[in-house]
């Protein structure tokens, strides 16, 4: 046992660093690829920068009123010069409109999407599953102008009838009140179109997460005499909960940034309207498109500022969503 007698252990040899100096071609390759990889950073940075530069004047002049007031007036004096003192830009009404539309879209679209994802993951026979999944993925590729036109020409007539029913039976809830009997092109109908538009993304993310439910836990639940529903409640829902929240937020981001479909379906009126069945509303994106046509360079700066607010809003929602989704994916095991 000679080793036992050694009181001082010999110092460990210094770690050698294993370095291979990459060849020239590899260094070029890495540089090119890294540049390409950083492009998303650059692009997002540039978007932020340019919208900020262009919107700066508006932010500077309007201050917080830009977010809190609902007054949009671009006053041009007789000489053609812009009257900056009397021009007011505030997007509160449209921010609230964005929120209302997104909430309707989530409230209607998410239960349908999650239910559909559960059906596809745990109930559907393989053949039906394949067809349905293809159909829903295809729906994700439909252009938004198509949803807009379909909403305007097809959904509108049915949805007006549903709106009247809601008003008749649930009119005592403030949201479902009607100040005047105009129910066409209302936030309710635009919200329904948005709900349909987010179904593909929420369904496919929920489906991916449900599909990761660990099989051994599923089997454990069945082996304990659980029905399929009991298994879902004990195993699949707790497992998928946070991932679905992430998927819902991705849908929320989609719904908040939608322009053309909302513009087509909704009667855009620049006022705060909580009565979702009434024919008036708007969101930031559609308002930008509406005002852009006739806007003076001065007003366009205000629209840029509105675009910046929308950009930051969707960026926050999407980032949170992706964070939540990727976390769930990891804890999946």
């Amino acid at each position: 046992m000679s080793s036992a007698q050694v009181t001082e252990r010999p110092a460990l040899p210094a770690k050698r660093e294993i370095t291979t100096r990459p060849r020239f071609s590899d260094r070029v390759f890495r540089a090119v690829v890294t540049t390409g990889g950083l492009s998303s950073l650059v692009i997002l940075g540039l978007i932020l920068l340019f919208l900020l530069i262009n919107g700066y004047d508006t932010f500077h002049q309007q201050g917080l009123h830009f977010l809190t007031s609902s007054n949009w007036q671009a006053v041009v004096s007789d000489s053609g010069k812009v009257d900056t003192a009397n021009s007011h830009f505030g997007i509160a009404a449209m921010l609230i409109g964005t929120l209302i539309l997104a909430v309707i879209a989530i409230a209607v679209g998410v239960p349908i999407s999650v239910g559909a994802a559960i059906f596809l993951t745990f109930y559907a026979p393989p053949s039906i599953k394949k067809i349905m999944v293809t159909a829903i993925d295809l729906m994700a590729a439909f252009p938004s102008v198509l949803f807009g036109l379909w909403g305007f020409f097809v959904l509108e007539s049915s949805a007006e009838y549903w709106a009247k029913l809601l008003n008749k039976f649930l009119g005592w809830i403030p949201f479902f009140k009607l100040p005047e009997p105009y129910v066409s092109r209302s936030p309710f109908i635009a919200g329904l179109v948005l709900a349909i538009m987010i179904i593909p993304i929420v369904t496919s993310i929920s489906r991916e997460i449900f599909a990761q439910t660990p099989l051994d836990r599923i089997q454990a639940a069945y082996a304990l005499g659980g029905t399929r529903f009991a298994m879902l409640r004990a195993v699949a829902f707790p497992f998928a909960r946070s991932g679905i929240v992430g998927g819902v937020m991705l849908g929320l981001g989609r719904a908040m940034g939608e322009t053309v479909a909302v513009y087509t379906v909704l009667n855009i009126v620049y006022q705060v309207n909580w009565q979702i069945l009434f024919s008036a509303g708007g969101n930031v994106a559609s308002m930008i498109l509406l005002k852009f046509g006739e806007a003076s360079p001065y007003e366009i700066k205000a629209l840029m500022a509105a675009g910046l607010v929308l950009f930051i809003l969707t960026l926050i929602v999407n980032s949170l969503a992706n964070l939540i989704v990727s976390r769930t994916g990891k804890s999946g095991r």
Partner: protein
Amino acid sequence: MSINSENNEGEKMETTTTPGSLSAIAAMHVDKKPGSQALGVGLEARGIHAWFGQKHVLSDVSLDFWSGTVTALIGPSGCGKSTFLRTLNRMHEFIPGAAMAGEVLLNGEDIYAPGVDVTKIRLKVGMVFQKPNPFPSMTIAENVLAGLKLAQLKVENKDDLLEECLERAGLWGEVKDRLNTHGGSLSGGQQQRLCIARALAVRPQVLLMDEPCSALDPGSTLRIEETISHLSSSVTIIIVTHNMQQAARVSDYTAFFLSDGGPGQMVEVGSTNDIFSRPKDKRTENYVTGRFG
């Protein structure tokens, strides 16, 4: 009988488990057959076949399981012993493309008969899996009682049931102070015993164990084996194992399964003592003496 099994354990702990002493281990195990037969046959498999898609994986297995005994299913990988086990509580049907033939009688009634409520079958025939699979979103206590919640069963005193099940699974002493912590904090062996406690909480008549120790270290394996010995007086246990010493240590009966390229078959069944010391079939002898597999 419980006195017997306790005595056995003391001896088992000291037994060295070299392959040559399998018959010795088996011999030490008290044969329960005479006493148990009075309790009757709880579960009978009659001419069980199993398929995955077109592949015939198990052919014509008929086997009776006496109440209050431990039966070990041994055999090389791919011999159909796990598949057979899963036909006994209808877990087989979760595999896409699965099919079967034959009948499984639980207290004389076919569990595959039309109109049978499969969830009720699984309450009577519980299962413990290869890998410990406690529900991570639930606490230790909730895990044990999960079966009641899943099957919407009512019970008078949950705390008593909780303690009883954990006690029977040999886990009570280790977890009684942290019943409300999450099951994930336990070691692998403790998790497996938690799963056993969970299976016991719905008071099954039969407990199926699919290689319950294969993912565990030797110390935890020993604890599970003790638990099995304790349980065998009250529950019929059927255990699939790759570990022949384990079969010899814990089981009263042993069935040897083998596949010669075609569907798996049961080659021989008998008391564990007989299978390990006086196998009738040459193939069984080759397997238990370690010549193949």
